């Protein structure tokens, strides 16, 4: 067995002002060449654990620390962070906050310069690490010119240049689009398998971790709940559900199949395993074909949002939208998806008059946005941006919700009534006197939604609402969108997290390179794998399993969720569906 490169011995830790330990009795061994995945809900202690590897916890934050962390033979309490940086490379969640230099080569050189590596040696290492992360030839580019995925790869390259014994990555893909996430996982896997770099990665990306990790550690409330290979942890469905975690879609599908009576000795955790296992099952039970392809029902009346031949070119010449035409009617739930830069947000910004068309027209309830001002529009079209913290300006939740109403000359009685209504709808009555920024991120998002609902808009746009959220946080926000939709609001969600949307959206607008690639019911759009791939999206694993079934049997299935796939396959011995 390879030697241990890092060990945690009964580590417990409390931040200076935390009421309870964030890490409790953690004992862990990371072996040379291993790929260790850290999983757990938000607040489980994953980030704190990652920061303990290089001594940031407790040396930078202070607090109370018990036990010992040893990395490459060094006790992290006894050696300064700058000395530990030679052995531990760390990549954080947000690619933007990690960039410290104004060129790619300077970014890589920064740690080496601090470690007093001679100039010639720095020059020799830069092309090597850029090649390792597939950023060759970009030495002189400004990091801001890189995409999110490229920035994370640059952060990895900057760490690799130091030649650390251990590379720690804390949620490196949570803020990236699917193509960026795929780039990062593929590079990290390559570094681990081909160069033998030891990896520790905290991530909510179950499908990807199942493919890459050798070993998983499940954390909850600062404690290790269980550890083992992905096939051991992800297959404990009840435990995962209990901790509000999401096992890979393929594992959940086979879990439902097992519950439906199929004999499944081992639940698969990777897509390849799942496809190999589902085909014989499908051939044996001949699933029932899905009903005819659904179509978007024609809607009567004037559309609430009408876009005609819309084009937009930014000042720098970037053609962000080309010839977009679509209508959105009252009461629809629409998903707008596509890779970063596909034009999703640019399109939505036209609905709010934050941008005006270069060509074509956008009408809100029949009125061209040219003839409206932003504040008038904001009362009809609410917008929840990705980062709630930029949308909070007040010192209590109640003031935040009432903020706009006060400036819009609303009568005092009405302000009170609408604030009360919004707080109740978002379940914020108990925290009405709290500072909004003292609440967890999910609740902060609800404060912003409540403030927007107080304006009583007919349309609510959610721009990447699930980015940076764990599964439970994402589901909570999406349940809110469902509540709004059920209450008659028109809901537009912009996201590339397709696996989360199957149970919510009715209609999908797929965008790519500024054009509208597809406008179809979700059941149709999610099954057009080639179309999704053209804008660097992948359908959820359940959809891919349904394809495998169709491939094996010739029977078309248009399932979206693991339950639906299991339901389609579940049949009695006479061949009838259960």
């Amino acid at each position, binding site marked *: 067995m390879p030697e241990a490169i890092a060990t945690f011995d009964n580590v417990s830790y409390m931040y200076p002002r935390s009421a309870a330990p964030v890490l409790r009795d953690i004992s862990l061994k990371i072996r040379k060449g291993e790929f260790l995945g850290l999983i757990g809900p938000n607040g489980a202690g994953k980030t704190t654990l990652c920061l303990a590897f290089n001594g940031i916890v407790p040396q930078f934050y202070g607090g109370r620390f018990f036990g010992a962390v040893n990395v490459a033979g060094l006790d992290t309490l006894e050696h300064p962070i700058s000395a530990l940086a030679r052995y531990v490379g*760390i990549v954080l969640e947000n690619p933007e906050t990690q960039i410290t230099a104004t060129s790619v080569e*300077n970014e890589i050189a920064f740690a080496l310069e601090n470690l*007093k590596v001679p100039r010639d040696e720095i020059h020799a290492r830069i092309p090597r690490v850029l090649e390792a992360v597939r950023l060759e030839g970009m030495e002189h580019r400004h990091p801001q010119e890189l995409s999110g995925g490229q920035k994370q790869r640059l952060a990895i390259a900057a760490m690799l240049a130091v030649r650390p014994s251990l590379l720690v990555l804390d949620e490196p893909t949570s803020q990236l689009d699917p193509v960026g996430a795929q780039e990062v996982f593929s590079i990290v896997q390559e570094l681990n398998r081909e160069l033998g770099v030891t990896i520790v990665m905290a991530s909510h990306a179950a499908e990807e971790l199942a493919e890459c990790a050798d070993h998983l550690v499940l954390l909850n409330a600062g404690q290790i709940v269980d550890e083992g290979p992905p096939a051991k942890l992800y297959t404990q469905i009840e435990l995962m559900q209990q901790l509000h975690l999401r096992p890979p879609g393929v594992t959940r599908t086979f879990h439902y199949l097992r519950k439906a009576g199929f004999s499944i000795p081992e639940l698969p955790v990777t897509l390849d395993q799942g496809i190999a296992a589902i085909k014989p099952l499908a051939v044996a039970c001949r699933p029932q074909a899905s009903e005819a392809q659904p179509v978007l029902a024609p809607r009567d009346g004037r559309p609430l949002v009408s876009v005609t031949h819309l084009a937009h070119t930014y000042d720098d010449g970037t053609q962000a939208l080309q010839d977009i035409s679509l209508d959105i009617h009252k009461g629809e739930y629409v998903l707008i998806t596509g890779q970063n830069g596909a034009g999703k947000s640019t399109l939505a910004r036209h609905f709010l008059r934050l941008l005006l068309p270069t060509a074509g027209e956008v009408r809100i309830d029949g009125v061209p946005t040219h003839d409206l001002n932003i504040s008038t529009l904001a009362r009809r079209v609410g917008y929840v941006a990705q980062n709630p913290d930029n949308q909070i300006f007040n010192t209590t939740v109640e003031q935040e919700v009432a903020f706009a109403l006060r400036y819009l000359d609303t009568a005092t009685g009405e302000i009170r009534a609408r604030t009360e209504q919004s707080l109740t709808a978002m379940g914020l009555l108990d925290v009405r006197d709290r500072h909004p920024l003292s609440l967890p991120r999910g609740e902060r998002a609800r404060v912003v939604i409540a403030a927007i609902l107080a304006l009583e808009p007919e349309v609510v746009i959610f721009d990447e609402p699930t980015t940076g959220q764990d599964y439970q946080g994402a589901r909570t926000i999406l349940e809110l969108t469902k509540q709004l939709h059920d209450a008659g609001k028109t809901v537009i969600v912009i996201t590339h997290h397709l696996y989360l949307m199957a149970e919510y959206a009715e209609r999908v607008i797929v965008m790519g390179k500024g054009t509208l690639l597809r406008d179809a019911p979700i059941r149709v759009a999610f099954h057009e794998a080639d179309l999704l791939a053209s804008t660097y999206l992948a359908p959820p694993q359940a959809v891919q399993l349904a394809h495998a079934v169709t491939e094996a049997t010739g029977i078309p299935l248009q399932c979206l969720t693991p339950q639906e796939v299991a339901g389609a396959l579940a049949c009695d011995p006479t061949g009838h569906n259960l």
Partner: protein
Amino acid sequence: MSTMAFRTVERDSLFTRLDFRPKLFMIAVITVIAFVWEDPLMGGGLALSVLLACLAAGVKPGYIRTVLWLMLPFSLILILTQGFFSGALITTLTGLQPDDFHMLFVFPAAWPLIGGAGLSWEGVQYALNIIAKSLTMTLVIPLGIFTTDVDTMIVGMVKARIPYKIAFVFSSTLRFFPLLFARTQAIIEAQRLRGLAFETMGPVKRLRVYARIVVPLILGALNESQMLDVVLQSRAFDGSPDRTYLHDSRLIAADYALFGLFGLFLLAAIIGYIVFGFGRFTGVLW
């Protein structure tokens, strides 16, 4: 959110190729001369030269326009205050008595409180001198800073024997500005999306709304600076000057020429001022 793109000059020119040290020297010399010269014509000439140099170096005209626009109210206030109230100063500098001042405008003597007060041409000239000084000092900074890559700036400053910690803090501050600006824009946009129509608000109401930006701005900045600290420490940064540098900062002929040119300019300006009175305020513009 775009961050850290502080260098705004995209054009490659002599200014971008120069080392940061002669540019620092140039900034210092021009600032000193702008400070010394009181003559509005010479000061104006210096300001105009710096402005033209900025344009030649590729500083965006939009940036210069914004600077001039921001300086406009300040300039108008200066013209009024100096034009009306700088009598004693003008007498000290030129020996001219108030009765000899050329009055551009005088309030009728019968008017209460302000009756008889007048706007003197000499006072206006003195105001123009201050405006020229301010403009020179405001524009010479982007001429030096915008034409230098932040990383190169650090190396240049360290070579100029400025302590590494100070050079790093300086460069970090420069990187921080665009971030702060982008965040401010995002917050204002979020406020507009809550239905707030700034264009129809009175100045007091608008100020009250703008004041709300401060809380998220400061909290965001604190959070980001803490994250930056974590990132820096994780990359072995401890502020120690004992480190290596990827790039060397070597002076080339053009750098030495710039040193020489501005050294001579400073010398000539000081001698001219002391010995021949060049740049002194005379109160006689033509």
